[in-house]
């Protein structure tokens, strides 16, 4: 039987949720119009007044915000309240373009942590659990978000941050951690280290993991579940919208319930900006409903996914979003074909390789080249060049079938592709150097 952190919201009827969203939206739009000059100018330009927004049905009238707007307005341009009301900032790593700095009032922090608490409870967490938070702490939202959520649930919280994996495992064993929160690639690495230490999932007490902040595949989920002996739950969020906890997975593991009382979701056609009906694949757009310090209306996430209100066996009525099928930022266009790194990862895991890989895209004589570096495992190593070359060819062929373009596969020695303890760097696009 499912547990809920806030059943009155998580199992509310669609009508109740819509009414609540409409009421909050009217207030949030007014708050933004009065306090955020940057967005007020956008609304004025479009000829929209706060009075025009009477319910969620009027949402489409509002202008979009994009990552470029966040850059233009950096650092204070989108601030919705006086700085002296703010108590916290979090920031993105700034790996793509300029970094995003998000501000929080105490209320913003509390609501964010509640969102994370819902995720922990959905993963089976109670105040009897020991929750090991192995996301990075600091400016990155992962650590602070799940740490706060864990406190709200009443778990004994281990603020480990990421890294020092053997010590992570030691604490895990000594203090009987039952829940772990980190990036999926770090979870996979912990699983690998556990094995290297000669331990099995039976030597630890973990039962659930909450993993997010980077794309991961179903194959990777199964690998992690097996190597740590847990059920693995996805969690989604962006620094722009607060951090992890915008949506979270329940035991059904078929998509993430969006915390709709705080975040209003839409799917749009990324080309035209047109709102698409439920069930369509498109770009996810969020409107914050309760934010004081960093309210964002119709923020384009660049994540491509699908929304669904199909009844969920967990009893939650919150709308579900699919795992993002790719980010338009991450999407590579190679020889005119749209390629998502996650597609390549799916092939690797299916072919028995690890998820440690590096994609290198370059241009030679005006043609794009795709090189995929993959770590060879001990079982796959054989004594002849012929056999290893045959493996490279077979893998290249499997990738070609998936993508429709021919890659060059390079099998490399184990541990030569840099391990991630935070976000994984999986793509190097050298074409940019030539442009």
């Amino acid at each position: 039987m499912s547990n809920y952190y806030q059943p009155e919201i998580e199992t509310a009827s669609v009508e109740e949720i819509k009414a609540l969203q409409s009421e909050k939206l009217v207030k949030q739009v007014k708050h933004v119009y009065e306090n955020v000059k940057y967005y007020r100018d956008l609304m004025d330009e479009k000829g929209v007044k706060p009075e025009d927004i009477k319910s969620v049905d009027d949402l489409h009238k509002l202008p979009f915000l994009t990552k470029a707007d966040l850059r233009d307005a950096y650092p204070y341009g989108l601030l919705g309240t006086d700085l002296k009301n703010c108590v916290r900032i979090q920031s993105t790593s700034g790996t793509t373009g300029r970094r995003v700095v998000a501000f929080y009032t105490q209320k913003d922090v509390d609501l964010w942590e509640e969102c994370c608490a819902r995720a922990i409870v959905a993963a089976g967490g109670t105040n009897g659990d020991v929750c090991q938070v192995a996301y990075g702490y600091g400016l990155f939202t992962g650590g602070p978000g799940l740490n706060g959520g864990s406190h709200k649930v009443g778990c004994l919280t281990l603020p480990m941050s990421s890294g020092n994996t053997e010590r992570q495992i030691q604490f895990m064993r000594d203090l009987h951690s039952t829940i772990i929160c980190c990036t999926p690639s770090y979870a996979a690495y912990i699983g690998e280290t556990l094995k290297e230490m000669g331990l099995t999932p039976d030597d630890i007490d973990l039962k659930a993991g909450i993993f997010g902040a980077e794309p991961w595949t179903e194959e990777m989920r199964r690998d992690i579940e097996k190597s740590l002996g847990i059920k693995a739950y996805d969690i989604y969020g962006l620094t722009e919208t607060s951090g992890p906890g915008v949506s979270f997975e329940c035991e059904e593991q078929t998509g993430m319930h969006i915390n709709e009382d705080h975040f209003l979701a839409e799917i749009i056609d990324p080309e035209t900006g047109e709102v698409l009906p439920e069930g369509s694949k498109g770009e996810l757009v969020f409107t914050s409903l309760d934010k004081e310090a960093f309210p964002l209306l119709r923020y384009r996430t660049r994540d491509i996914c699908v929304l669904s209100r199909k009844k969920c066996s967990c009893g939650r009525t919150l709308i579900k979003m699919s795992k993002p099928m790719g980010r338009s930022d991450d999407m590579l266009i190679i020889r005119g074909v749209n390629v998502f790194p996650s597609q390549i990862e799916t092939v690797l895991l299916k072919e028995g390789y690890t998820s440690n890989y590096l994609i290198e895209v370059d241009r030679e004589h005006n043609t794009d080249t795709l090189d995929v570096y993959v770590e060879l495992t001990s079982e796959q190593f054989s004594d002849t060049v012929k056999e290893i070359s045959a493996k490279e060819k077979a893998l290249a062929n499997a990738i070609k079938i998936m993508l429709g373009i021919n890659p060059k596969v390079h099998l490399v020695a184990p541990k030569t592709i840099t391990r991630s303890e935070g976000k994984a760097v999986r793509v190097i696009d050298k074409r940019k150097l030539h442009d």
Partner: protein
Amino acid sequence: MAVKQISVFIQNKKGRLAKVSRLLADNGVYIRALSIADTQDFGILRLICEDVDKVNSILKEAGYLTTKTDVLVAAVKDDPGALAIIAEALRDADVSIEYVYELATVDNIVYLVVRVDDNQVAAAALAGAGIRTASEEEIFKL
């Protein structure tokens, strides 16, 4: 009469061979013979040495990918055509040769390491052609 060989996967990058050689040297491993097969991306270092299991675990502990294989050491007179005699005998027995390298030449006898797809058939074919295969014991006394 097979002899144990260790193969090590080595990235084709500057200094990688030096690193593995230093590791073996520091552990007092005496390499009786070696060969390197390389492609643009990677190389396979093949070693014939004593105490194969110990060497294997030294390499594995240092994080190398290794595999142990059985190879034959054919001992033939060091004349022009020494290799031809071996290759023809194996061809006639329908055995494929993966690779051959020299282990040593002593007293006008050349010892060649031969890696084939089927050691038993190959050993019989060589014996049938009057070619002797050397034992592990013998090669370390050379």
